């Protein structure tokens, strides 16, 4: 039941890795963010959007089995 969680930009630097694998199935996006904050000190995760399987997600969406979760800090491409 492990989910892949992806980090980019400053979140990636802060946590020191590109991804982690943890079980967050059944949790809401909001709950996963709180977990990142409390467990990994990732305060800035609250400024990030979240993508589930490469689609932007709202905070009340629930993570399902095998879902890939990515935190998307404010983008600055172009």
């Amino acid at each position, binding site marked *: 039941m492990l989910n892949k969680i992806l980090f980019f930009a400053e979140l990636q630097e802060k946590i020191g890795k590109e991804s982690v694998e943890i079980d967050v199935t059944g949790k809401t996006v909001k709950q996963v963010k709180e977990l990142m904050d409390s467990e990994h000190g990732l305060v800035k995760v609250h400024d990030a959007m979240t*993508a589930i399987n*490469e689609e932007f997600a709202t905070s009340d969406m629930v993570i399902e089995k095998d879902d890939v979760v990515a935190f998307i800090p404010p983008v*600055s491409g172009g």
Partner: protein
Amino acid sequence: MEKLFQIIEEPISIEKTVGLVSRRDAGAINTFIGTVREFTKGKRTLYLEYQAYQSMAEAKLAEIGNEIIDQWPDSKVAITHRVGRLDIEDIAVVIAISTPHRADSYEASRYAIERTKEIVPIWKKEHWEDGEEWIGNQTETKSFVSGKPEEGDMC
């Protein structure tokens, strides 16, 4: 055959990107080229580092392409964004849009770069003589929420 929407690490060929949209029934091709500027608000940039969530970024670029076809049905769009280390004057992004008539090519091209800056998961880190920083809301981009308005709060 090159992809219409892609994230690459190598220098971007403008001719190649334009070639992807050139066609017999287009009379106009507008191209937007984003380059690395040395000075931003008086601060000297040494170089930039771009990072992307590659698969999602290419999907979002393709989504922008679809949005453009919806609004300008007779257009063809290609967008290539480079990642990795970029020096001053290097090309970060090339957008090419062909349309039968020129007004549409300008409007669609402008739309494409604005949307790219809003919804495509690409980040740049500025390196200065006295520091470095990942750029986001704090400086250049607008309110993040506009990226994908949906019911409920974004996060």
